[in-house]
């Protein structure tokens, strides 16, 4: 059982490694979106540090979202999705490996890069740490929930925009708790409550999202 899971993970990571430009695109998107805000708002450090949590979280959310369409589209086009559906292992289990790979490729780099961008926004040091924690807890949820949207819109016309419409409203709790944690810490308050709620949302989606994604994939290949 683990053998298969690891194979799916390894295959997706290997593919991402052979197409490094895809990872770079996501990261570049994150950097450029978060750099646009100071240009639009003005360079005052006080203003920037107060909007930083929200801006960085929204940028991370969008960066995760634009990469969603790749999650199952290639597999569906070359037939490896069919093969995965016919594997003896439960589909939800294999899907969770794909989602994990997606997070490693698209989520983790953003988490690691975020504190650097945070420095540009004149964020205090403590808040930078909380930013990393909150993204670490929250970005897996983005991949998990996003996978449902990606599976539902598989092969549908205009799927890129549609996935945004489906998935963004579902991202709201993660955004609220994630950005809230960073903001609380920037105001010298404890971020613990936010982070626990964020973890709760992540756990819930960890349990439910692979099942929903598997069901959506079954519907999509019919």
């Amino acid at each position, binding site marked *: 059982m683990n053998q298969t899971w690891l194979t799916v993970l390894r295959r997706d990571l290997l593919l991402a490694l052979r197409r490094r430009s895809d990872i770079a695109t996501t990261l570049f998107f994150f950097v450029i979106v978060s750099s646009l805000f100071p240009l639009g708002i003005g360079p005052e450090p006080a203003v920037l540090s107060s909007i930083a949590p929200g801006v960085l979280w929204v940028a991370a959310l969008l960066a995760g979202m634009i990469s969603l369409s790749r999650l199952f589209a290639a597999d569906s086009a070359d037939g490896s999705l069919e093969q995965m559906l016919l594997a003896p292992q439960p589909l939800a289990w294999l899907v969770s490996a794909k989602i994990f790979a997606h997070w490693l490729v698209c989520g983790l780099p953003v988490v690691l890069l975020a504190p650097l961008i945070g420095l540009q926004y004149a964020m205090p040091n403590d808040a930078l740490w909380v930013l990393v924690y909150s993204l670490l807890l929250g970005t897996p949820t983005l991949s998990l929930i996003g996978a*449902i949207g990606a599976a*539902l*819109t598989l092969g*549908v*016309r*205009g*799927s890129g925009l*549609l996935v945004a*419409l*489906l998935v*963004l*409203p*579902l991202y*709201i*709790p993660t955004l*609220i*708790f994630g950005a*809230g944690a960073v903001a*609380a810490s920037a105001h010298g308050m404890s971020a613990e409550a936010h982070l626990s*709620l964020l973890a709760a*949302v992540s756990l*819930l989606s960890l349990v*439910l999202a692979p099942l*929903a994604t598997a*069901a*959506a994939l079954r*519907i*999509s290949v*019919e």
Partner: protein
Amino acid sequence: MHMNWFKYSSPQTFYPLAGKMIPWFFWAASLLCAVGLYVSFAIAPTDFQQGEAYRIIFVHVPAAWMSMFIYLVMAGWAAMGLALNARLSAMMAQALAPTGAMFTLLALVTGSLWGKPMWGTWWVWDARLTSELILLFLYLGFMALQSSIDDPRRADRAGALLALVGVVNVPIIYFSVKWWNTLHQGSSINMGVAPKMAATMLLGMLLMALAFWMYSVAVALMRVRCIMLERERSSDWVQSLSAKGSK
């Protein structure tokens, strides 16, 4: 019992049945609406703080209730459609969505029309309005997904799954928005109904909500009839129906 259900779940038997039910629901809606409007405008007293502007709640609150209620009912039909593979259930879910979206939009617009004279701004980011806005997004997502999938069977099933995912998320979203709202003191205007509300005010709201409910049922039945006609346009029963209509 079992057979009965299958009988009415086939479109050609449900279509005339729904046709017979629609006028009744419309009559009930009109009657309830008439009484409701009378209570809301003639009997309910003027509010001490808000003056006459508060009378907007007689559409705003029922519309907000209906918007959430319809989403729940929609998810219920969707779940049944997925579990029993029943076409009619999926069609009902699809038929409810536009009406639910309309009530959501009405709740938003009337809420903002109520907010303007009370707080001097068209929009406040309070928990209720923000949740309604997100609910509108959920409705729009459902409708967009269904309309962009050509195969009706896949559209039904994908839409149903999305409605279920949405309904699991609605309480979480509502809770998170409330939490967010209490943390940000700057926008802590609470648009909730005043605690000491006269019984007649509550009665007016209930009557209007019932009227909206009956209306929603009637309109959903109308729409489900349209969907049946469109999907089964080549089947014999639609053919004979359209031939009858043209004579």
